[in-house]
């Protein structure tokens, strides 16, 4: 079949356009698919043509029968098998998931596409008995969409790891990922932190809030170094440097020193305080020592002019930086 791509349609016709091409019965009589359709044509629900390619939608429970009919008619090469999540497709009313099988016939030198739709819970019969190559393709579709294939010899995840939570190519899976750290490092990440499927992605920052001790090789709290030097001892070993940091507790003097609170909450608590208090409240409150001080020390250094670099607070990210910038500008520094 020669390739006759359709010209782009004019912009947005109000009503869904009547398929300009051939009807389903005409497509079934196309020499490309006629023989296979004779055997299993009644399983074909609808047919479509686009850009010179024929797509046939097949009843889900009869896909193996149709696949065999096509294979016996020369379509012995399964080119591709891909899942699609239609849940965000405009004006879509069918099942949530679709699976496309692209077949190729060496003798006819042309391709045909079979399509099956399903929902989250209904498995599709596997075509691994028809084409061996379907094995990995179906595993990939299962991995990415959670579509189950009945009769598959080894339906495991293939690209994601075993134990991964979620199916990445579903439309409700956030592009920045979900918190898989909680599953792998439950002692470090709180369960359920980070964005969840269906979230808007605004909570994604939680992924980076590391609640455990921070270990920063080569940067110590200034106070700790001074204390050690005064005692004539050595600076702490790199592995131990973070241990001193795990002291982020709200105190009477600094009620905002609580990593659980949000920045506006902390600023509210510190609104009557001195510049140092406000700066202190703007920090991430993790006492991570990435800046070289604990949170209070950094705030004091900024307030006294010992440091003028407002970009050092790593866990606070842009939020802290812009607040520090505002406070420093307000104080005329």
């Amino acid at each position, binding site marked *: 079949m020669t390739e006759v791509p359709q010209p782009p349609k004019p912009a947005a016709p109000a009503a869904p356009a009547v398929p300009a091409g051939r009807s389903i019965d005409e497509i079934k009589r196309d020499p490309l698919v006629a023989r296979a359709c004779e055997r299993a044509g009644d399983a074909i629900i609808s047919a479509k043509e686009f*850009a010179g390619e024929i797509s046939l939608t097949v009843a889900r429970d009869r896909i193996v029968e149709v696949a065999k009919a096509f294979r016996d008619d020369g379509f012995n090469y399964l080119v*591709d098998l891909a899942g699609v999540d239609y849940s965000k497709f405009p004006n879509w009313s069918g099942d949530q998931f679709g699976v496309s099988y692209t077949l190729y016939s060496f003798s006819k030198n042309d391709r045909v596409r079979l399509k099956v739709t399903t929902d989250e819970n209904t498995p599709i019969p596997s075509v691994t008995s028809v084409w061996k190559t379907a094995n990995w393709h179906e595993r990939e579709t299962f991995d990415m969409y959670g579509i189950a294939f009945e009769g598959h010899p080894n339906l495991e995840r293939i690209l994601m790891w075993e134990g991964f939570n979620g199916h*990445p190519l579903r439309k409700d899976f956030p*592009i920045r990922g979900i918190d898989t750290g909680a599953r792998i490092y439950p002692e470090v990440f709180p369960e359920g932190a980070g964005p969840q499927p269906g979230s808007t992605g605004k909570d994604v920052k939680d992924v980076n809030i590391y609640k455990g001790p921070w270990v920063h090789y080569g940067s110590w709290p200034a106070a700790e170094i001074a204390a050690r030097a005064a005692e004539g001892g050595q600076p702490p070993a790199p592995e131990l440097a973070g241990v001193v940091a795990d002291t982020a507790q709200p105190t009477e003097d600094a009620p905002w020193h609580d990593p659980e609170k949000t920045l506006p909450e902390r600023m509210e608590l510190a609104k009557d305080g001195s510049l140092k208090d406000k700066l202190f409240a703007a920090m991430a409150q993790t006492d991570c020592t990435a800046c070289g001080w604990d949170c209070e020390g950094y705030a004091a250094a900024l307030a006294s002019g010992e440091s003028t670099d407002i970009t050092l607070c790593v866990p606070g990210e842009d939020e802290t930086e812009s607040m520090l910038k505002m406070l420093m500008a307000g104080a005329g520094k």
Partner: protein
Amino acid sequence: MFDVHEMEVNFGPQHPSTHGVLRVILKIDGERIIDAKPIIGYLHRGTEKLFENMSYPMCIPHTDRMDYVASATNNLGFVETVEKLMGITKQIPKRAQLMRVMLSELQRISSHLLWLATHAIDIGAMTPFFYCFREREQILDLFEEYCGARLTLNCMRIGGMPDDLPPGWLDDVEKFVDKFEDAVDEYESLLTNNRIWKKRTVGIGVISPEEAIDWGITGPPLRGSGVEWDLRRAQPYECYSELKFDVPIGKNGDTYDRYLCRMEEMRQSNWILKQCIPLVKATPAGDIKAKISRVVRPPEGEVYHSIESPKGELGYYIVSDGKSQTAYRCHVRPPSFVNLQALPAMAKGHLVSDLVALIGTIDIVLGEVDR
């Protein structure tokens, strides 16, 4: 449970001859492989998810990073699929088509050179590596001259090419193709009749044509089994129908035949390049872009389109909702992924050292397998 002689060992993922991060769980009896189970996904970056979240032109650099030793063909497959979706395949100017063909044939040679170098070094032949990289370097220089990049080229656009050829580029290509034929002879003189090479490759990993098709194998591994099928010939895209070239096929479907096929393919690609040079010179300079809208918003529909990449059939399946400038779904059919699936079938009964030869002969790139 296990037979007392059997044991299970991990091959990779951190092993130099897995060509990346491929892990194979081997069940072996002494040195003989009883079963092999490839574990992939270590390099999964969610490329298809990214495609759903960026406009079509923004996807092109991401295609570079799939088969990162053959990025020009990845670009070609993607832009052609979008062009097919938009129905502008026929509008691409001749000069742009020829440039695409030239870049992808240069890329095919460079990909095959990398394959030969690493395949030979895996099997134990050190010398071909240096010879192959000598020529590959020249090709990368040609890429650099054209688009500034050597590996991730991002050298094609929907509707044409980003830039015209720099002055003198065709002469440089001419200099290269004149010498390259001799270079292939040189590689062959090192390997083709080498007794050790033959002992390590003849009869290893035999796969019959029927089985190859059943496994969906494409590219040189399919042709090595004796199936004369090349997408450039079967479904010519760009201007391949006007160019002369042969499709080399093997007889026995073993590692040696696949080696011979790829060697001949390099010669054929060289021949195609030779034909292209006068044809490009005959086209008007600067005519490299179709006159299409700057905003790529294809109509509602779905297409599958594939090209012959150095590894096999590289296909893209794009679903467009007709309303946005973003693909609703873009699935990549990577040849390495599908070809790798047949590894257990090929490896059964061979020695562990042959597995190294088999991974080399399938010519996988894990960036493409895992996407």
